[in-house]
């Protein structure tokens, strides 16, 4: 179901496609699922679990909310880049089947992020709407995936980090975290976005103990410059 939806969308997928792809008989299909929709719901639930588990693993043992946000963002986007069919089904087909579910993921994710900030003892003050931020993030991801550019999803790390941080910590902190994230995901993302080198050095040197996700890509010329300054 997941690969059929990715290829031709839920609307165009037939039971015949499903049984031939899965190499099961029609009879077996109907023993397991009552209809195409039933099978779709099971597939979507499994995809959602997979994304949820990846995010949970990424933030495990991480106390600082901003860092946890960055880690989760990197892990989530890398997963979707490697398996774009997850994003296609969760963002695209799920809405095609039931448009009112558009804020379903926001209702799952926003309290989780809120809890991160609350656990860290930060007063959870809303600088802007996390729900709208989440909707934006969803759209940016779907925009890349729908265009067949899933491999470029990791370039969205700074944007998503900003969206996940700014509602709770404010625009300036969101921007700072986005710059940190841009530096830590490597040249691709930050160079494409055209960030000015001075500001990145500033961001990195004020970053203090808040290291990025600690990827090898951090060893860029920019990091080197920051090292010389501090």
């Amino acid at each position: 179901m997941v690969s059929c939806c990715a290829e031709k969308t839920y609307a165009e997928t037939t039971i015949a496609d499903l049984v031939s792809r899965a190499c099961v008989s029609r009879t077996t299909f109907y023993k397991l699922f009552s209809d195409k929709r039933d099978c779709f719901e099971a597939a979507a639930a499994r995809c959602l679990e997979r994304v949820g588990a990846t995010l949970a693993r990424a933030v495990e043992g991480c106390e600082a909310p901003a860092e946890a946000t960055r880690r989760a963002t990197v892990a989530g986007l890398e997963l979707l880049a490697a398996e774009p069919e997850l994003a296609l089904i969760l963002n695209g087909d799920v809405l095609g089947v039931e448009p009112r579910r558009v804020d379903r993921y926001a209702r799952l994710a926003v309290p989780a992020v809120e809890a991160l900030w609350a656990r860290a003892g930060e007063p959870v003050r809303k600088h802007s709407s996390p729900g709208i931020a989440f909707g934006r993030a969803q759209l940016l991801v779907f925009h890349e995936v729908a265009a067949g550019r899933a491999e470029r999803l990791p370039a969205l790390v700074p944007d998503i980090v900003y969206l996940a941080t700014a509602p709770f910590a404010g625009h300036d902190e969101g921007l700072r975290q986005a710059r940190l994230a841009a530096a830590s995901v490597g040249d691709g993302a930050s160079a494409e976005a055209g960030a000015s080198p001075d500001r990145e050095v500033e961001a990195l040197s004020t970053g203090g103990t808040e290291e990025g996700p600690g990827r090898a890509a951090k060893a860029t010329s920019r990091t080197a410059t920051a090292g010389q300054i501090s």
Partner: protein
Amino acid sequence: MSAPAPARLPRGRHHLSRDDVTRSQRERLIAATARVTAERGYEATSVADILAASGVGRESFYELFGDRRECVLVAHQAMLDDLIAKVGAAYAGEGEWVDRCRTTLAALLDWFASDPAAGRFLLVEVAAVGPEFHARFEAGFDRFVEIIDAGLPADLPDPGPLPTTSLAVGAAISRVYVEVAAGRSEHLPALLPQLTYEVLVPFLGEATARDAAFAAL
């Protein structure tokens, strides 16, 4: 598409040219396709439903469109063009950039509020046409980003690595989608101050955005 449904042509002898007749039929079919598809859902809509709602004959339908899908895609393009023209005109108006942003968002929200069926068709039902929807979605999104980018003032603060325009368009579209999908299109104009604030924050920060979004109240 807040204009009233295109009128049927007079029966019997008339002095309209063949082109006039075709244009009228095309407009009626587009309006009817959007309305009927939004009401019944794409899957449940047949060519017969569209014909009944438009008053156009089957033969004329197939002279204009290969099938229902093509008609739906043409109707979708026409709706999107109309929305983009209205939003673009609002953005191109007079005044400070933040005021033009508010006017632009007002135009967007009013468009969806004034014709909930058209909005539902444009954003929601079109997802059912199949993979073609992905390309449509991307192209539509990019056209909004282009329009907003073309009118950005030079003196905005440096957004660092943020694609501020995509964030602005994303905020507006995702918010509108939530309301349209929930059947609350008519409440959209009331969201103007909040949405203006959300759109402006990545460009200007909270304090300036708050002043710009709520000052007019």
